[in-house]
């Protein structure tokens, strides 16, 4: 059965070692019939891009739980463009900045960095998976 709905590169960016959400996301994506390349915790931007190129991934899912997301995520979209996969979907979620967040501002900050979807802490996997299905339908529709 190769009815995979798509391929996702999954990882926790920067010096962040939060492994549990990452493992749950992998489990949830597989359950939802996606192919998952999990590059694990402490992943660099380069590792994300490399994995996406090697596997022809449809999306990159970046987690950041430790508050340094703002510094770690800058430039990821650029790196993708330089590598020729500029239109890949990039989602990010977690505790993205230090301190209690004004969510609107945080979301705007990361959207301006080129992320397609930005998720607050506590988002359940199903939410982002549904978004992904929708985004993929649209993008695949476009291609037809």
């Amino acid at each position, binding site marked *: 059965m190769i009815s995979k709905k798509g391929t996702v590169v999954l990882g926790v960016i920067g*010096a962040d*070692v939060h*492994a*549990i959400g990452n493992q749950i996301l992998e489990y949830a994506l597989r359950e939802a019939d996606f192919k998952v390349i999990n590059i694990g915790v402490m992943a660099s931007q380069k590792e994300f891009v490399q994995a996406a190129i090697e596997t022809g991934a449809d999306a990159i899912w970046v987690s950041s739980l430790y*508050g*340094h997301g703002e510094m770690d995520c800058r430039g990821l979209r650029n790196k993708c463009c330089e590598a020729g996969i500029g239109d890949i979907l990039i989602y990010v979620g977690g505790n993205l900045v230090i*301190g209690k967040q004004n969510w609107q501002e945080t979301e705007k900050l990361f959207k301006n960095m080129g992320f397609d979807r930005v998720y607050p802490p506590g988002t359940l996997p199903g939410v982002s998976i549904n978004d992904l299905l929708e985004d993929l339908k649209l993008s695949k529709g476009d291609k037809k």
Partner: protein
Amino acid sequence: MQVKNKKIDKELFLKERQEVLKSWSTGKEVDINEAVEFHKNMPENKIMVNKLIDAKNNNKTLIQPRAGVALVEAHIDLLKFLLEKGEADLLPTTIDSYTRQNQYQEAEQGIKESYETRRSMLNGFPAVNYGVKECRKIIEAIDAPVEVRHGTPDARLLAEITLAGGFTDFEGGAISYNIPYAKKVSLEDTIQYWQYVDRLVGYYYEHGIKINREPFGPLTGTLVPPAISHSVAILEALLAVKQGVKYVSLGYGQNGNLIQDIAAIQSLKELAEKYICDEGYDDIEITTVFHQWMGGFPQDEAKAFAVISWGATASALSKATKVIVKSPHEALGIPTKEANASGLKTTRQIINMLRDQSIEQTKNMDIEREIIIEETIAILSKVKELGDGDWAVGIVRAFEAGVLDIPFAPSQYNSGKILPARDNKGAVRFLNTGNLPFDNKIKDFHADKLKERGFYEERDVSFQMVVDDIYAISKGMLVGRPK
């Protein structure tokens, strides 16, 4: 195998120190003889060991927050606030994640951006970049003992700088700050790094300075069966005392089932004393640390207060020496200082109200205590066997063999075969014991407990239970029942 559980030779140690101190510019500020003098002149109430032993002797549970920001003055203000408004007994300095990975360049950038934006861009205090003098500003300003809390696999330089800076307690260990905190660092390496840290603490002790050491109890902080964290805590204690450490606080992260949590603190103390004694030591002070719920928190603050209170309750009833406190912002990231103080005050009120109360030892507490003891002894015996009698060698081989195995850990040196899940009363059991050296009696105990839950929930025992359990408390339950 190059590691051995052997006290580092003095000459070799002093030589290694020269190397370590060169690894970042601030290292040259460290003058250990001057640092010993600094400690000697410190008021008694700023020394962690004094407070811990007093609490232990008087059956008190002390409270300590987590806290650290990028800028020194802001960090001092934060600690002062937590001491005065939050009524903390003990204070921390939580180190940022770049420093934890020895990425001092990135930490420097974080300090710079924090100055520019006037908000902390780092999730902790970059002590190495600041160096000895700035650390002492903290110690001098704060009228309580301050502990270094971090998550650094190679904390040699951090220890040099913060201990010279006047901190009197240092968290971490070869396993607890590697397997849950790193991806590719070998145990051989971290055992050596932490033997160095322990040797340094022992060196201070030889010069009359009491510094406390605290292996990090909760590991990955989520559904860690007590025997797993106990094994790690005791192994790190054994390595530490070998290097001359005399004061050890052993930690445990709340699992949520009261009986299991009480039994865990009881058995941790009992087991640690036994193993330390078996190794021939009679001069080690062991205290215990209870970590309030380390897993996912409810976003709602009122519900978070309930989780904090429940942790405070378990810490008080288990008679732990200190409790590490969460804040009502836990689900949302690093708390404001007010939220941090709120968590402390909630905990303070519970601890005080329960100060004179206790629950008698019940049959189920004994059952839990005994199974934890049995499991821990099974693991530690096998570790020793694998190491041919050497704990350090045993640790490396035990991780290779999956005899030591930490659930949900990111390290590639962890086999990750065991799987925990809650039983029908919320106690954490093994859904999969992987390669743990358990006999059938222990395995059946866990299987039966989970079967009971499966029967109640009318579903198979599976990974879905684990997923449900991980989200349960943040959704307002302890056991992750199906809808």
